[in-house]
């Protein structure tokens, strides 16, 4: 049973990272008005919100599974306070910070109208840092961090994220045709 928590920790971590990258991509495509003509922008926004919520849900399951795995050395303190883990201290720290950033991003999206747009935007953009930290956390602490399959997947997701970010930045620089 303990092994099951270990496998669940690893698999939910990988899926949460992929979902976070998917949320990032759909968000960038939506905000850069680069969503094509096949789907309406509302569709992309809906999907972006969903990806973000599910990524947070999988992150919670990931944290819970690592807490239940008695061999992981993760207790309540390590789950909530960065830098308290004895093994892979930096890696766990990145994971905890990424979890907080995801949570802040998702929970500030609901009362968006109550926040000032600029503040909301800054808070929302911290999720990009969260995704980067989540990838770093997986690379440094994950059992699969050194396997070819994991490295290839990490490079692929990073490339997709960078592509979406590039599209967004390009939309800021290049004026849209009307």
């Amino acid at each position: 049973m303990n092994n099951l928590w270990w496998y669940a920790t690893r698999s939910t971590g990988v899926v949460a990272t992929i979902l976070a990258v998917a949320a990032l991509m759909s968000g960038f495509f939506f905000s850069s008005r680069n969503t094509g003509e096949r789907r309406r922008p509302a569709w992309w926004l809906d999907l972006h919100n969903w990806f973000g919520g599910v990524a947070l849900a999988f992150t919670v399951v990931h944290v819970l599974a690592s807490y239940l795995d008695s061999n992981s050395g993760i207790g309540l303190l390590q789950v909530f306070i960065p830098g308290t883990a004895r093994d892979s201290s930096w890696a766990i720290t990145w994971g905890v910070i990424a979890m907080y950033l995801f949570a802040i991003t998702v929970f500030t999206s609901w009362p968006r109208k109550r926040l000032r747009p600029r503040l909301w935007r800054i808070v929302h953009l911290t999720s990009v840092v969260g995704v980067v930290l989540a990838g770093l956390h997986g690379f440094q602490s994950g059992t699969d961090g050194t396997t070819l399959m994991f490295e290839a997947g990490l490079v692929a997701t990073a490339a997709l994220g960078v592509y979406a970010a590039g599209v967004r930045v390009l939309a800021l620089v290049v004026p849209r045709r009307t």
Partner: protein
Amino acid sequence: MSTQPLSKSAGDPLLERLERLERLNQRRDGNAGRSPASGSLSPPPPPAQTRHAKRHPARIARLGALAISCATTGGLTYLFADLNASKSANQALAALPAVVPVGVQITSAPPTSAATPATTPAATAAGVPSATATTAAPTPSAPAATPVAAVQAFNGQLVNTEYGPVQVQLQFTNGAISEVAIVAYPTGDKKSVRINARALPTLRSEVLSAQSAQIDTVSGATYTSDAYVRSLQSAIDQARAAGATARG
């Protein structure tokens, strides 16, 4: 009340049809109390499902993403468990004793840092044609290593099973079975490797404690166990013929 619409649209088939449609829509919405006569022929409000779909335009994509995420999690969990099981099986098989050359091996005390081990082929036991003797050749500054025991190794018969060949090697020290090595075992598929990783150490410990081929089969590894026992018995027979042991 129900006769009112009929009288209103009497003679006009198009109106009658529209009224029928309106009544149908009202029934579908569960708005049975509303009189068709009081209302106009305005379009009915959209059903609940349509309103929900408008609130979540990417409803199908969301469900698809959730399903893919859950399936990926399950698949990865299975993959990790499978990889771990294979790794454990390989470790268990690697921990099995090594096969030695058939014949007589004279083992000596471990050489000291000054001692240089040297292997010289020699027939040291009568009746064993392919015997080799391994001794430690001491340097003048180091004390001589004392031979501890002579180990005689016999390979059993190669027994073919449905899943692959099985062959064991028995090693005798002072007439007793001191070790059982496995020369060949089914490695054709991952399942066989896993089964053998569990069965072979069990069979080995059974042989070492029983000092004979009278051992129990391992459940779930019947083919391997039977072939193991047959190969083991042939090795014991060879050893008995060579005078290495009187047991078995």
